């Protein structure tokens, strides 16, 4: 059974009053450290009083790192025990459901961390079903969080109907639990729901949700949440034919992002890519290119540039080069984008197809018909696998292939 979340004031108070005997460490579940401090104090008192000074430094060190210890203790608590708690602290009497939840949740996390959204959806569905049993349907904050995660995964997979159902339930449950839209967990749900609504064309609902979020966030404070909100609002404005508002929101988000001390790298990259794309639309090539390059530099530092976001930057830089007639640069960027997609989203065939299509076009434009034919053949295979042989995209890809001089077609 869970012991509940560890409280920061209690931990600090214990460090102050019982730090020399490790009281705060016992409270945080850091038993080895607690026993060590207790033993050191005993030895110090009996044999070597100078050890008490060492002990004091140790406790001071603990105080400095207390936030980290608290986070770790609460994280472990969440992973290891929260599933046994229903809303209002009621406990489940179904340990089998809890065990099933943990098993699938671990697989979900593994798949999600690797970017395998299909795997995440598969395991997440099973984890969610077990969690519903474990917490007797809720309302429960862990269940609401899992519903949010599943909603986000479904949205990334393009299953917006399912995503919206999960996210509606998540937001409703957080409300039942008394959370406000600005609370971190709920903000994430509201944000994902708004994104899904926007994807589904329900722009009014999306705007309403963003406004709720905006009202709930502390005004003028630069945080990841406020940057994300502006970035998403900008996308919504872009979709609803308000380019000026969109660009303004993006510029504000960029200024704000520079002030956030622990800026989320993925969010920052997305923001830079979005800004760059907007600038590219109005042919501000130099500034657009600079922002794409900043996005790539961020990704290079974070993950050697092996990411879907980096693929987006390369793709757009390729498109820009095409528009400027610089085919050699366009080829470089499209080749890199395709390679990154093949690594980062190997089973998202339609995403890969987009790069195959662009690259085939560039090869063709450069008169490299052999490579163009190879790429066009691959594109036909990709569309056939993803959409079937009679889909209009597949038929169009076959038509494009047929336009390549016969002698270049692969045997």
């Amino acid at each position, binding site marked *: 059974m869970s012991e509940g979340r560890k409280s920061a004031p209690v931990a600090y108070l214990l460090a102050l009053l019982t730090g020399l005997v490790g009281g705060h460490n016992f409270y945080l579940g850091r038993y080895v450290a607690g026993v060590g401090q207790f033993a050191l104090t005993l030895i110090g008192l009996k044999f070597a009083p100078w050890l008490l000074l060492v002990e004091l430094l140790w406790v001071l060190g603990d105080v400095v790192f207390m936030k980290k210890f608290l986070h770790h203790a609460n994280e472990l608590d969440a992973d290891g025990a929260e599933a046994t708690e229903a809303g209002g602290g009621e406990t489940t009497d179904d340990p089998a459901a809890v065990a099933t939840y943990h098993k699938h949740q671990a697989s979900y996390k*593994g*798949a999600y961390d*690797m*970017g*395998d959204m299909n*795997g995440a959806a598969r395991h997440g569905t099973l984890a969610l079903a077990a969690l519903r049993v474990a917490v007797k349907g809720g309302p429960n904050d862990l269940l609401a969080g899992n519903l949010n995660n599943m909603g986000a995964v479904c949205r990334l997979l393009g299953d917006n109907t399912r995503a919206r159902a999960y996210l509606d339930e998540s937001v409703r449950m957080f409300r039942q639990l008394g959370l406000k839209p600005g609370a971190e967990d709920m903000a994430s749900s509201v944000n994902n729901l708004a994104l899904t609504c926007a994807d589904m064309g329900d722009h009014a609902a999306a705007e309403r949700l963003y406004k709720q979020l905006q009202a709930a966030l502390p005004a003028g404070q630069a945080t990841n949440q406020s940057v994300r909100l502006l970035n998403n609002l900008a996308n919504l404005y872009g979709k609803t034919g308000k380019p000026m508002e969109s660009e303004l929101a993006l510029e504000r988000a960029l200024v704000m992002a520079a002030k956030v001390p622990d800026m989320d790298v993925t969010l920052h990259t997305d923001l830079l890519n979005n800004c760059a794309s907007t600038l590219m639309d109005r042919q501000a090539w130099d500034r657009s290119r600079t922002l794409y390059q900043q996005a790539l530099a961020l990704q290079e530092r974070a*993950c*050697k540039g*092996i990411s879907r976001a980096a693929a987006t930057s390369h793709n757009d830089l390729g498109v820009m080069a095409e528009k400027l007639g610089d085919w050699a640069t366009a080829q470089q960027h499209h080749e890199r984008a395709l*390679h990154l997609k*093949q*690594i*980062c989203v*190997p*089973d998202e065939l339609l995403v*890969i197809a987009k790069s195959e299509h662009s690259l085939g076009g560039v090869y063709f434009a450069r008169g490299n018909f052999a490579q163009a034919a190879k790429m066009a053949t*691959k594109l036909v295979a990709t569309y056939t696998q993803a959409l079937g042989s009679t889909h209009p995209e597949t038929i169009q890809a076959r038509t494009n292939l047929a336009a390549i001089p016969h002698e270049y077609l692969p045997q």
Partner: protein
Amino acid sequence: MSAGGCFVSVGGYRLRKIVIDPTGLYEYFDTPADSGGPTGRQTVEQAWDVVQALLPETVNGATLEGADLGETCLYLTPSRVVEAHAQLLKRDVSALVKHFVDEQERYKDLYWANVWQEDTEWLEQVIRELMQFFAAAAARGDAVIFYVG
């Protein structure tokens, strides 16, 4: 001790992690498949140079920068694995090996070429096993890492 070549298949989504940080791959290769380790493995032992020459599609990948597995280490994305498998299906193994034996002069500089030109049965078996390995990897949507170490 002479160098040996090995192909290892890993889950398609695992590849990204490996490309970002390829250190500690030997340890990772010992991880059981059900704990997230490699899904398959196929050694080509000292025939690695011959395999590369005869079946270039199996090594048509990118260099795995920073890997501590030996001098040669490269990876094929799941798309490349599917392509390699499609090309391997068109191969006639017996004809390929016969060509290798008949063209002694052409292949004489390959590592241990003369040994495999005498033991064609073993070489044929290695190639057939490698084809099965690629078929299985392609069916699972896996990536493949090749190294000589």
